[in-house]
């Protein structure tokens, strides 16, 4: 078919003007920082009066020196292990538990109860990690925490959870699940509500049991949503929730550093120190590039297995 190239109309001008303020926002807050990908290859210093770009132009190119420093110390491996390791656990729990709960809640006989459960489970989603850190403090602090009081009352040795690495390995996934389970469940429940009821009727008439209905109707219908959530969270696999790892542990005490330092907490703590910007930018560069690559890889993988559900 012959496609006529349209002329630029007054309508186009008006729409462009309407979009201009938001586009400006994108330029400043998303696209300008993208020039930051060069920072880890420079010995970047702020030159007074020269601004961001002036300073970039006047910085010396140092090649991979900043990365070499980061890898030589060996610290980066701890950061990467924690960031990726916890994220893998979060992704698995964050799909399995909410999907299970959504299926269970959709089958309840008492829908009024279902509403109440859902509302209660949604609650932590609306809290910030700072507030959550107070909740955690109420249970765990070494002098008065609920758990410690119980230990005292029971006459067993009390523990200082904030200095206990083995405790946090399990606490992080649990807290993350606790905060996100309601939100995840609601997303999947909405998808379940959208399933055509006649599918289940047909299944009943064919004599399908409840587990069979779940296996052959509910789960396949949830697949697109699960895949979308999977791609989205895999794309964040090099990022971590700063609030969870830094705030809830009350600033990462030294004794639990090995199990709770992630790339983001490292970057924050380095920004607070006198470490040169180029060195701090090295791990964020790895984050940006790796995140972009993983999201495209995950998408390509899905496209190969199940083309209909690929995101891009």
């Amino acid at each position: 078919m012959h496609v006529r190239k349209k002329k630029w109309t007054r309508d186009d001008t008006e729409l462009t003007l309407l979009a201009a303020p938001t586009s400006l926002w994108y330029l400043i807050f998303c696209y300008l920082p993208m020039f930051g990908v060069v920072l880890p290859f420079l010995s970047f210093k702020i030159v007074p009066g020269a601004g961001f770009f002036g300073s970039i132009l006047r910085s010396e190119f140092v090649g991979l020196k900043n990365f070499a420093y980061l890898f030589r110390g060996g610290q980066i491996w701890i950061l990467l292990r924690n960031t990726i390791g916890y994220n893998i656990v979060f992704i698995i729990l964050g799909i399995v538990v909410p999907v299970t709960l959504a299926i269970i809640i959709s089958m309840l006989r008492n829908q009024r109860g279902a509403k109440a459960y859902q509302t209660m489970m949604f609650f932590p989603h609306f809290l910030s990690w700072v507030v959550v850190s107070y909740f955690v403090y109420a249970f765990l602090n070494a002098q008065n925490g609920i758990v410690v009081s119980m230990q005292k009352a029971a006459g067993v040795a009390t523990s200082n959870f904030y200095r206990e690495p083995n405790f946090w390995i399990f606490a992080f996934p649990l807290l993350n699940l606790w905060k996100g389970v309601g939100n995840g469940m609601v997303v999947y429940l909405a998808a379940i509500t959208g399933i055509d009821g006649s599918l289940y009727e047909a299944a009943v008439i064919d004599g399908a049991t409840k587990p069979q209905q779940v296996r052959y109707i509910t789960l396949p219908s949830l697949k697109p949503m699960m895949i979308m959530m999977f791609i989205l969270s895999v794309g964040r696999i090099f990022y971590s929730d700063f609030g969870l790892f830094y705030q809830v542990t009350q600033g990462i005490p030294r004794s639990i550093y090995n199990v709770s330092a992630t790339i983001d907490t490292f970057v924050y703590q380095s920004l607070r120190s006198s470490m040169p910007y180029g060195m701090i930018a090295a791990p964020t560069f790895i984050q940006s590039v790796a995140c972009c690559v993983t999201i495209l890889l995950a998408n390509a993988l899905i496209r190969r297995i199940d083309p209909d559900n690929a995101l891009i």
Partner: protein
Amino acid sequence: MDKQYQNEKTVNRLNQIKHPTNLLFNSILLFFALACFLPFIVVLLVSITEEASISRYGYQLIPQAFSGQAYLFLWKERAQILNALLMSLITTSIGTVLGVLLTSVLGYVMSRPGYRLKGFLTWMVFIPMIFNGGMVASYVINVQLLQFRNGLHALILPLMVGSFNVVICKTFFRTTIPDSIVESAKIDGAGQLRIYFNIVLPISKPVLATMALFLSFGYWNDWFLSLLYITDNKLYTLQYLLQQIVLNVECLAKNPGIGSSLQGYIDSMPRESVRMAIAVIIVLPIALAYPFFQKYFISGLTIGAVKG
């Protein structure tokens, strides 16, 4: 029609789970629901426990002696808390209004079928979803170029727009605004600005409400921006105040009554219950309000799930 409905009901009734299974499922869900909500009740109870009881027995699930002294103390120190509340309200309201405007207007432009730069804008919104320049570059630009240090705009600007919200708006406008309305308004001589404000916005309340909710929660709960850019305690928001006193609750004590020294006042403050009381003050409004607007949250999540 009626008969079909009857059949459906019978099938649905036959297809329900058995009572023992129902009981099992209920107890699983009840467990999760309580796990999610009870911590708040615990914090509430601790906040009204008498300080002497706390220092003797620690925090307890069922306190021995109740007292409102923590709240009395906070009332005496209300100047700082009210100031933080004011800052939270200012950033949340300005940020939400501007954010909803910026987000929805871009969503609208992108939803127009014949628009020439549609492809360009789609990429502009999409790329930041998979790639960003990293926190260091943002930090340096924000501090150097935009003068974020101790400025209120530091807490407002960065959170205003998000690609996800733009896509939600675009999908909504694409599916709910009939092209014929826009076309006929154009024939009547209305410009796009006028169409957007007078026609599109009034019929798009659901998506605007959802956006407003997403944004206001983002602003209300944010403390990371304060952590990066704010040092002046006049600009502390509630969340940041809470973050600052988690280890150092004594810094709340500033107004000793007549006839007592500051040190004596600090020593006599009900430290542990105050800590929990201030958390309660911040959570309580959310706990009371969210059941009423969670449905807008859910509708936003489901609109966002539509691929577009």
